[in-house]
């Protein structure tokens, strides 16, 4: 067990980076997801097609390929951003595709009468989406969004493969120095479990507060 206490700073900073990556990516994914979902239900055909192309392209190429392409490819075409920033943007865009699908299913679950009522009041498309449909849609997809949050947490580990020293990479580094793999990797695993436990609890609380009983 000593290896853990000896290397607490490394584990701590790795854990912190994992949490930062997860939270920032989730925020980005939520924004991207809502925008893309709105595009996919809009009356403008081009926007619908673009939204669909976005979801298909992002979901059908592995995240690791996106990360490698962005981290090693972008500098080649003169786009230079920090490693952490690149990782956050890529994970946000990737999870954004999944978020968009979740939000869209929420939009489809809103009773048609709500949209009709909004239009009868004279609200435009963006107004009815923003004021009537989305607030209801988001409340019905708390659980799916919680699953996406856990998926994001798992996926931040992939940033380790391109050089971000988050929790998984930190554990690996400590192991290379100390060569006591069992304790080190078990500790990292427990940390991930604790984090997803927190996400699960938060989702449950939010769900109880927000869910609409139909």
């Amino acid at each position: 067990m000593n290896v853990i206490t000896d290397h607490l700073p490394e584990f701590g900073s790795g854990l912190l980076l994992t949490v930062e990556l997860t939270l920032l990516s989730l925020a980005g994914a939520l924004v991207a997801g809502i925008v893309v979902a709105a595009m996919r239900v809009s009356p403008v055909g081009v926007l619908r097609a673009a939204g669909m192309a976005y979801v298909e392209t992002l979901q059908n190429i592995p995240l690791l390929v996106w990360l490698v392409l962005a981290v090693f490819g972008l500098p080649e075409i003169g786009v230079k951003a920090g490693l952490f920033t690149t990782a956050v943007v890529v994970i946000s865009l990737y999870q954004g595709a999944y978020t968009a699908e979740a939000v869209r299913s929420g939009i489809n679950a809103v009773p048609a009468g709500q949209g009709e009522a909004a239009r009868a009041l004279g609200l435009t498309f963006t107004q009815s989406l923003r004021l009537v449909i989305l607030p209801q849609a988001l409340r019905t997809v708390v659980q799916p969004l919680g699953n996406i949050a856990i998926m994001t947490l798992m996926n931040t580990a992939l940033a380790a493969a391109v050089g971000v020293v988050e929790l998984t990479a930190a554990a690996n580094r400590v192991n290379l120095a100390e060569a006591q793999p069992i304790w080190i990797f078990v500790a990292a695993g427990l940390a991930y479990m604790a984090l997803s436990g927190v996400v699960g609890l938060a989702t449950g609380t939010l769900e109880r507060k927000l869910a609409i009983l139909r």
Partner: protein
Amino acid sequence: MSASRLLFDEPGPRARRRIRIATVLAVVAALALVGLALRQFADNGQLAAERWRPYGTWPMWRYLLEGLRSTLAAAAVSIAISAAAGVALALGRLSPSRWLRLPCAAYVEIVRTVPALLLVYIVLFALPRYGLDLPLFWKLVVPLSVSNAAAFAEIFRAGIRSVERGQLEAGLALGLTRGRAMRLVVLPQAARRVLPSLVSQSAGLLKDTSLGYVVSFAELLYSGKVLANYNHLLIQTYLVVALVYLVINATLSKVARTLEARQRTRPSRAVADAVPAAQPTT
């Protein structure tokens, strides 16, 4: 497109004009993005024909397709293992015996909250220290199977629970043991119902094989890395790799969607057959 009718009616003249304006703006924005990207490529000399020409030649493609073959092999083996383990775990989690139920539930809950990459690192760096040094192929397949078994287990469990209780009870009433009733009556129906989810989970697993990049097992992404180190066409190589993944996975998701749509429109043959039989014969 009936779902998207939720937010707008048949457009009138003013709405049509607005839609036209939005279309033009969207197209202009898209073209501007593409133009910006192309300018970045051109400014850094990445558009030069000789940087793309290698991907019109067979040797480059042969190397990448060799990688694709390994990707598909790793995915197929891993799908087979994790689907089999998934069935076992799902049955264990639904078993009446607590000594089976608890370990299976614990496995699923634990593995679902540990990143696949951490499992890969354990197989890569921890197991060799305890004298278990697997061949490269298995260093990729084992962690992927371990982590996806949990996902498959949850899919199968949902499927089994969706089969009406009466099916199992009817099997038991016919004198089948619990195991045989599960195997002969419940599981075939459950598997049918979750087929779309199984296909999309398999597509997800295929994406996970890109972890071969970490293991240095020569699947598609790692082959791309080796190739890029050799020909120094980094962007071009990874773009081609991404395109190959896109084609393969888009096909798989299309299959999953088709299966799902078919299940929704047409009740399974068993149900269709059962309906006329249920009509009272006068």
